[in-house]
């Protein structure tokens, strides 16, 4: 199929040949009207000049309209292309006005000579030539100039009475008026046409810039699936030139299965009559599998009839691959976290069980050591001297300490064993009960107790009781030296942690050692000041950890301590809800 450009060039050349031949025969016919050789020679020269002027102008206009060799856009009819020849170009105004003036004056001169052969007729029809050419080339302004010059000149020089603007005969006046009217109409029409062509051309160029500039494939198919338009990107995706795609359907671009699928999809979109966006997975003819994000929709003609389908398609194979990769990595990570968590939980559980069993099994030998030492003291008092007795007492003391440690560590491990069963616990009531209990043990203690009403926490009832007991016992223990002891339980804040606080005005401790506070067997006071094995706050910490909560303490030596805890209201990660 020859390109539009070739066809256009052929059309213009053929048109020129026909018109030029016609000119030769007709104008030579014209010369036969004249008898004198002088007129014939002059006219012959004049018509030659006129022909050159007219054909040069026509060439100028036609060459402007020649379409470029490569068009990615729509096919346009030849006449539409020809029409673009008169669209406003970059010709300077002075040139078009001068052209109008010169060609009109030239026609005046020609008319003057021709009139001799035609019995001094005005020959106004001749001036349609310069007016038409001027209007086509320059639009309204040059057209009007040509009309005005022609009208004034013929009125003065050609229409009787000559050398006067007065027109005597009414048929001359009519002809003259028609010339002016024609000139004005031609100029206006030419201007309107030029402007609308300019607008259309601008729109076409913008659209073309967008379509051919984008890296997305843009295409239009007819109702049979044949491509009417395809930009360079569309052609590039299937490895062809745009010209190789136009007029063909998907069967020439993709393997049969893919093509069938595509064409069925297109038909579905056209039947639905709606624009939609979706992903297409296509195997190109070279076997590459590509993923596209495609927007397709129907194309309608001016009467609203569906004439095809447009598509804008972006290749997202890499992005898609990356997305899949991210998804895969994420799920792998998730899987790994789950596995590691399970492994850790299992390892932790085994360690706890080992610690528990180990500690538990220490009880029998400790009991035996203490038991047999006691039996020595009880049953063999007669044969044991004072020094041996002192040594036995030390064994008994060490044994007692060991027993205390074992019971402490067992309590620590035991307190968080088993299933965590969360419920809302009335901390105020629990604290009051624990104070009552400890108060019954030491009724002689003078102590002010302030428990805020309505404190609640969500947790395991048994664990929270153990935890609160340690906190209450501690506060009780460390205020034992004060006559004005005050212990408060309230909703408050320690180091930015908002929760339930228990504060006393007892011995307190140095914050420099705060990090040891919640570790097992760490004591911040001498045994003769306050007895204990340093397991209480470690137990509290374990219970808080088991609940996924947080715990903080603030204190100063001699100024009391405040311990604040917070428990989450919802189950934590890795725990059944």
């Amino acid at each position, binding site marked *: 199929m020859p390109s539009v450009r070739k066809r256009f060039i052929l059309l213009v050349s053929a048109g020129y040949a026909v018109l030029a031949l016609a000119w030769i025969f007709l104008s030579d016919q014209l010369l036969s009207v004249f008898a004198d050789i002088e007129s014939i020679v002059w006219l012959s020269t004049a018509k030659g000049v006129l022909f050159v002027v007219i054909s040069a102008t026509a060439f100028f206009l036609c060459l402007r309209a020649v379409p470029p060799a490569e068009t990615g856009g729509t096919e346009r009819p030849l006449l539409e292309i020809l029409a673009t020849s008169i669209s406003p170009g970059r010709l300077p105004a002075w040139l078009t006005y001068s052209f109008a003036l010169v060609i009109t004056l030239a026609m005046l001169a020609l008319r003057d000579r021709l009139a001799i052969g035609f019995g001094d007729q005005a020959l106004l029809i001749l001036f349609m030539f310069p007016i038409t050419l001027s209007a086509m080339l320059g639009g309204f302004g040059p057209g009007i100039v040509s009309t005005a010059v022609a009208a004034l000149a013929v009125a003065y020089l050609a229409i009787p009475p000559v050398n006067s603007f007065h027109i005597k005969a009414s048929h001359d006046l009519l002809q003259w008026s028609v010339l002016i009217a024609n000139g004005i109409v031609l100029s206006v029409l030419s201007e309107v046409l030029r402007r609308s062509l300019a607008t259309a051309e601008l729109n076409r160029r913008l659209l073309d810039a967008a379509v051919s500039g984008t890296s997305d494939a843009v295409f239009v198919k007819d109702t049979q699936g044949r491509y009417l338009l395809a930009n360079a990107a569309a052609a590039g995706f299937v490895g062809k030139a745009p010209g190789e795609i136009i007029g063909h359907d998907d069967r020439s671009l993709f393997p049969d299965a893919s093509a069938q699928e595509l064409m069925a999809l297109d038909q579905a979109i056209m039947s639905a009559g709606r624009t939609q966006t979706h992903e297409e997975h296509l195997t190109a003819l070279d076997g590459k599998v590509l993923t596209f994000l495609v927007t397709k929709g129907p194309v309608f003609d001016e009467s609203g009839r569906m004439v095809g389908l447009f598509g804008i398609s972006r290749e997202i194979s890499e992005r898609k691959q990356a997305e899949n990769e991210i998804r895969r990595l994420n799920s792998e990570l998730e899987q790994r976290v789950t596995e590691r968590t399970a492994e850790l939980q299992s390892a932790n559980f085994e360690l706890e069980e080992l610690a528990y069993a180990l500690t538990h099994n220490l009880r029998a*030998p400790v*009991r035996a050591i203490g038991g047999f030492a*006691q039996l020595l003291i009880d049953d063999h008092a007669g044969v044991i001297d004072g020094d041996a007795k002192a040594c036995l007492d030390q064994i008994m003391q060490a044994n007692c300490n060991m027993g205390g440690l074992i019971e402490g560590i067992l309590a620590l491990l035991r307190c968080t064993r088993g299933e965590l069963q969360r419920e809302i616990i009335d901390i105020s009531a629990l604290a009051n009960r624990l104070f009552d209990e400890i108060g019954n043990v030491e009724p002689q203690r003078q102590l002010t107790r302030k428990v805020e009403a309505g404190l609640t926490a969500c947790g395991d009832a048994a664990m929270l009781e153990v935890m609160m007991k340690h906190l209450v016992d501690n506060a009780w223990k460390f205020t034992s030296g004060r006559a004005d002891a005050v212990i408060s339980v309230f909703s408050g804040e320690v180091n930015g942690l908002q929760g339930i606080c228990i504060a006393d005005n007892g011995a307190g401790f140095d914050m420099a050692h705060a990090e040891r506070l919640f570790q097992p067997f760490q004591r911040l006071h001498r045994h003769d000041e306050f007895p204990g094995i340093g397991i209480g706050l470690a137990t509290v910490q374990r219970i808080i950890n088991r609940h996924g909560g947080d715990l903080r303490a603030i204190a100063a030596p001699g100024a009391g301590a405040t311990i604040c805890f917070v428990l989450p209201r919802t189950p934590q990660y890795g725990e059944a809800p």
Partner: protein
Amino acid sequence: MSRKSILLVEDNAQDEMLILRVLKKVNLVNTIEVVRDGQQAVDYLFGEGEFAGRARAEPPTVVLLDIGLPRLSGLEVLERLRADPRTRLQPVVILTSSDEDRDRLRSYENGANSFVRKPLDFTEFAETVARLGVYWLVTNEAPQG
């Protein structure tokens, strides 16, 4: 009235020795038989295995049974005793170091008559064992009468 006696099932030699000494002080020592694992306990009570010659006619007044025993555990021994009509009513006291809730529950489910934890402190331990001996041999009335 048959002779009153205790069967002590205990695998820890030192605990055994301590228990025997405590019971001796309350004059109960010549009424005690000791076996050292669960299988022995079952054989003793049913007159089987190494105790095949022992007359079944003399069941102990009470069995002091540890839980963590070699071969058969204390809980398994208890289960077998309760499953057999001859020993269904045999008084059994679980005397153990275990402080697991589930051991205590299983013991009662399997029909233990009492569950006593061995205190860590020897003085408490001695008091507990002495009280047990006196209670089961003197105070308590056995089912067989």
